[in-house]
């Protein structure tokens, strides 16, 4: 071999490797919730496709704030809730439309896919497909707070000082329903919505002495319930089920006015650079057996068709206990939030926080 070959061979090799990288293997920067991308699933995906996955854990508000700060850059796939896509998209333009042809639609529960697409459509283009769904309602220590049937019961003297909920919009919506109003119907009518929120505000201010603290993180709430300092809280279903495994008295209860249903989606940030890998991830995690692994990690069910049969019996049992058939029908699914409603809610939340 001549000298020239000695040098040329590695360079050629490097160039080929670089090409392969460009064509086949990408880094997928995933902006998601805790538990939605468990290590074992990421490992399987990386082995199968050659892509690498970088996971950033976040929540709805932070996802939007992060993407807004960069104009939709820095991440290749995000997982906001379906009701929080249309508004921010109209306002900030942080997502790009989903190419449904790249998605294996057969893997999705059809009704959920259709609903999500409908809710995330802006100017005729769809921006989200469903991934994981769940509800929020009441997590109770049934031995001490069995009388709590709905959100408004949290203000009852029997549980004074042993109540916790978040000071965020789900609480406002939940109380509105429990007070016999329909905030979702008023989404389009700012004045009517304001009226509803004023009543909720009055109720929350009146209820404040009952509250031990407004929880802000899942772990914080778990500690409060586990130690018995709080016996009734407004929280996600999975939190209740996790505690149920340790202490059979604590469980998730769907409130009489209806649990609030949310669906977390897949959405493509406007400046994402690895769409192909993003679509590959979506199709991979929607496989029933993979979806079941995520259900195991996150505690919530997915929109994957046929994944139920892979789910653990314990989880299924907890779900049926918390959701009798009529409660499932009564779930209030969040419609898309029109841009601007947050300002009204924000004022209410500020005033509740400041009230004595």
């Amino acid at each position, binding site marked *: 071999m001549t000298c020239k070959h000695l040098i040329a061979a590695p360079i050629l090799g490097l160039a080929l490797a670089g090409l392969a990288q460009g064509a086949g293997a990408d880094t997928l920067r995933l902006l998601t919730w805790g538990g939605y991308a468990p290590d074992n699933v990421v490992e399987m995906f990386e082995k199968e496709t050659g892509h690498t996955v970088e996971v950033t854990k976040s929540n709805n508000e932070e996802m939007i704030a992060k993407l807004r700060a960069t104009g939709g850059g820095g991440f290749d796939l995000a997982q906001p809730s379906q009701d929080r896509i249309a508004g921010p998209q109209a306002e*900030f333009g942080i997502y790009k439309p989903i190419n449904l042809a790249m998605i294996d639609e057969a893997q999705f529960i059809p009704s959920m896919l259709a609903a999500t697409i409908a809710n995330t459509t802006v100017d005729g283009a769809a921006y989200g497909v469903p991934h994981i769904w769940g509800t929020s309602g009441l997590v109770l220590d049934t031995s001490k707070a069995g009388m709590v049937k709905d959100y408004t019961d949290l203000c009852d003297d029997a549980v004074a000082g042993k109540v916790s909920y978040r000071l965020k919009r789900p609480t406002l919506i939940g109380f509105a329903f429990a007070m016999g109003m329909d905030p979702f119907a008023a989404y389009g009518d700012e004045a009517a919505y304001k009226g509803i929120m004023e009543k909720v505000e009055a109720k929350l201010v009146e209820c*404040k002495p009952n509250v*031990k603290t407004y929880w*802000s993180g899942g772990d914080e709430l778990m500690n409060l319930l586990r130690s018995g300092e709080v016996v009734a809280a407004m929280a996600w279903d999975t939190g209740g089920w996790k505690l149920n495994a340790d202490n059979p008295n604590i469980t998730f209860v769907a409130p009489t006015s209806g649990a609030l249903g949310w669906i977390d989606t897949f959405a493509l940030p406007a400046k994402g650079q690895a769409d192909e890998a993003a679509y590959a991830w979506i199709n991979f995690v929607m496989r029933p057996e993979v979806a079941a692994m995520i259900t195991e990690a996150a505690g919530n069910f997915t929109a994957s068709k046929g994944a139920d049969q892979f789910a653990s019996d314990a989880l299924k049992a907890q779900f049926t206990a918390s959701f009798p058939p009529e409660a499932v029908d009564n779930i209030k699914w969040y419609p898309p939030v029109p841009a601007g409603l947050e300002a009204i809610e*924000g004022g209410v*939340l500020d005033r509740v926080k400041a009230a004595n």
Partner: protein
Amino acid sequence: MQGGTRLGFVLLLTPLLLWLGLLIVIPHIDMFLVSIKERVGVGEYDTSLANYGTFFAETLYLWTFLRTAVMSILATAITLLIAFPVSYYIAKIAKGRLQSALFLLCLVPFWVSELVRTFGWMILLRETGVFSSLLQWAGLADQPVEMLYNDAAIMVGLVYTSMLFMVVPLVTTLESLDNAVIEAGYDLGGNGFSVLREIVIPHAMPGIVSGCIVVFMLSLGNYLTPTMLGGKDSLWFTELIYAQFIVRFNWELGAAFGFMLLILSSVIVWATLRLTGQTLRDTLG
């Protein structure tokens, strides 16, 4: 030779200018520009001072700021009261290894993150926590005592978090005070109080002022401690800013709040310096 010196000067100055420019000046200009925008419709903005108007019109925001400022001043005063004897002991009374050991003890809590430290206080103060259990065990309380989620808990957390930033400048200035000067104070007829008032405190004034400025600013800008220890009534100004930026997507109002925090805290520091007859130049040395 002349050219070489100048090049060296430029090279030394560049990192500072880059740091000031990229990390301080440009973001503040950008934040100011954001703060003077007013949302008039979906994706439409006008230039106006409406956001600043909101700050002054809505008593809640002004009230929250005042509360934050007063609590921060109180936290600064308490920190000073506790840190002064501690620093005096470390700088003037403890010797050799005890001195370095005590100084290290002040430093140790800062080896873990602020979050962990705050969690530590939560474990101590909560209803099923250590203090509550101790009180019940000692028979001083017949039921669990809740010490978390109130202003006193915030104060404890703030003072604890700030202690080091008061102790370090105080120890440094007190160490520079010649022991003979203190002895001379006694020798010429002074008692403990008058030596403290006429000699030790005037000497330590630069350290007191710089410590107070740092602690006040840190308390004012603290987010974790008031939110976690304060519970439902915490009401801290940084929480409002966080809420505007992250929860409400209202960057314009958030930026205006941020600017008001900057301006008002600067005014408070300036006024305090004027009132106590100190100048920033004396303090910086």
